[in-house]
């Protein structure tokens, strides 16, 4: 059926659960991940700076603490955040991303440690070149660490469009509709408020021939059909 298969254009990747429904994971590309990394880098830099200022007053003992802090922040910052905060570091949170196992389950200690230790290799030879090449060439946008740990960086659920359907008198479709036609009409009505008047007409024109509508009435009729299809309580 055409409806259940995700469009070929986006990077969504369906994952069948034991319940027989598809989870749609959407792996994130290079730019959002780069930005998330930069945000994290700034935060980490800030923390190290703060510690440096605070611990310099503690003398030699402070210096020992400082090297432990530096170690924790350089190696454990992403691991601790990812495992304890639903797969997010602050940078990933800011960019609306999170890390999951490739089977859609939340990331655990081992996988997170693998993917973050292998950053060492992703960074080679300079500026994450190996990681970037791996990310661009892999189907699910994984850097080397992700490949080894079998993890994905995916988008978190986006906020939903919850606007009600526009008001229009109900219209009964001229013939029984295919499922994808129904879906197209409902989609049209739901997105109606976000479209410019020209685009509304343009989209409605596409449906005119198959539904035998006149272009000047097309918009109102489509909204009416959407209301009919949706039914009332």
């Amino acid at each position, binding site marked *: 059926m055409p409806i259940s298969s995700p469009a070929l254009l986006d990077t969504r990747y369906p994952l069948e659960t034991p319940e027989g429904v598809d989870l*749609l994971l959407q792996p994130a590309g290079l730019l959002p991940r780069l930005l998330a990394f930069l945000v994290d880098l700034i935060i980490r830099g800030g923390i190290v700076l703060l510690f440096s200022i605070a611990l310099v007053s503690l003398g030699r003992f402070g210096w020992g603490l400082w090297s432990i802090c530096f170690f924790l922040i350089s190696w454990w910052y992403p691991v601790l955040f990812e495992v304890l905060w639903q797969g997010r570091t602050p940078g990933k949170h800011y960019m609306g991303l999170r890390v999951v196992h490739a089977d859609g389950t939340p990331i655990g200690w081992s996988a997170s440690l693998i993917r973050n*230790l292998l950053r060492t*290799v992703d960074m080679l030879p300079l500026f994450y070149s190996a990681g970037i090449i791996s990310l661009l060439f892999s189907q699910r946008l994984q850097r080397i660490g992700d490949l080894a740990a079998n993890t994905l960086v995916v988008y978190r659920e986006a906020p939903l469009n919850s606007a009600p359907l526009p008001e229009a008198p109900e219209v009964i479709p001229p013939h029984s509709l295919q499922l994808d036609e129904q879906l197209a009409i409902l989609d049209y009505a739901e997105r109606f408020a976000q479209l410019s008047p020209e685009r509304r007409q343009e989209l409605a024109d596409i449906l005119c021939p198959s539904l035998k509508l006149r272009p000047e009435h097309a918009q109102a009729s489509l909204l009416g059909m959407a209301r009919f299809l949706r*039914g009332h309580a």
Partner: protein
Amino acid sequence: MKQQQFEQLRSDSWLHFEQQLEQLEKGDKHKRPAEDFPQRYRALCQDKALAQSRAYSNTLVERLQQLVSRGHQQLYRHRSRSLSRIVQFLLADFPRAVRREWRAVGIASACFYGPALLLGVLVYLFPELIYSLMDPAQVRDMEQMYDPSARRFGEGALRSSDSNWVMFGHYISNNIGIGFRTYATGIIFGLGSLFLVVFNGLVIGGVAGYLSQLGFVETFFGFVIAHGAFELTAITFAGAAGLKLGWSLIAPGNLSRLQALQQAARDSMTLVYGVILLLLIAAFVEAFWSSMNLAFSTKLIVGGVMWLWVAAYFGWMGRTHAAE
């Protein structure tokens, strides 16, 4: 059934599910949500499939999709390391993993101790060889650090307890960092791990040989013997774990290279956790025991006992099923 009716009929159940989800996501582990979470999740999956096959609007399907996705995150988890798993790790998993990977551990040890011994002997015979390994300033620092005559002027007393803390922090960040790098670079067909293991072996062997020929045997070996048991073992294990990664790419067997790599990474994690543990112990011993100014014989005996412990632990721990 029309969409509106369907929503009306089911929306209470969805709302309830969403509340349970929010509770779970906030991580109230103690306040367990109602037992019916899995049941509601399955019902939700069915609703989503129905909505999709009946071509209900995308907004509805998307909403259910998100709920399913969030529910899946809460319901399905890989097994996590609880306290009992940590005990299990110490009593059985770690030493067993070392014995299971005896080939990799053997190769890594040979690549570490072999070059160390070779260069140790060479530098002992031809001391100027040390300058091809380290620059003169480093050699001078090292000489000063282990010079027995310096001790008489109170070097041992100078090192007060707060500087032990400095060294503790330094050893942790430095050594575990090296361990991690030795492991991770193994993915380059094992070459990175091999290089780092051999290189560390050369440096340690060279230093030992050079200081021995100067006659600093007591200060140097007295210092390193105890924590060496943990530190050197950890470096060879990190190398072994890295070699395992690399070998999975060279000879993946019946699996695809990617699958073999993923499996090797999963399996090697036991060794990596062990490396972290060993290096933490090593840093502690190095900072607080090795720095103490005691008789050489005491140091030698304690150091020897530590090597025996390590050997016994990896040789025999977890061989019986009682450990489970």
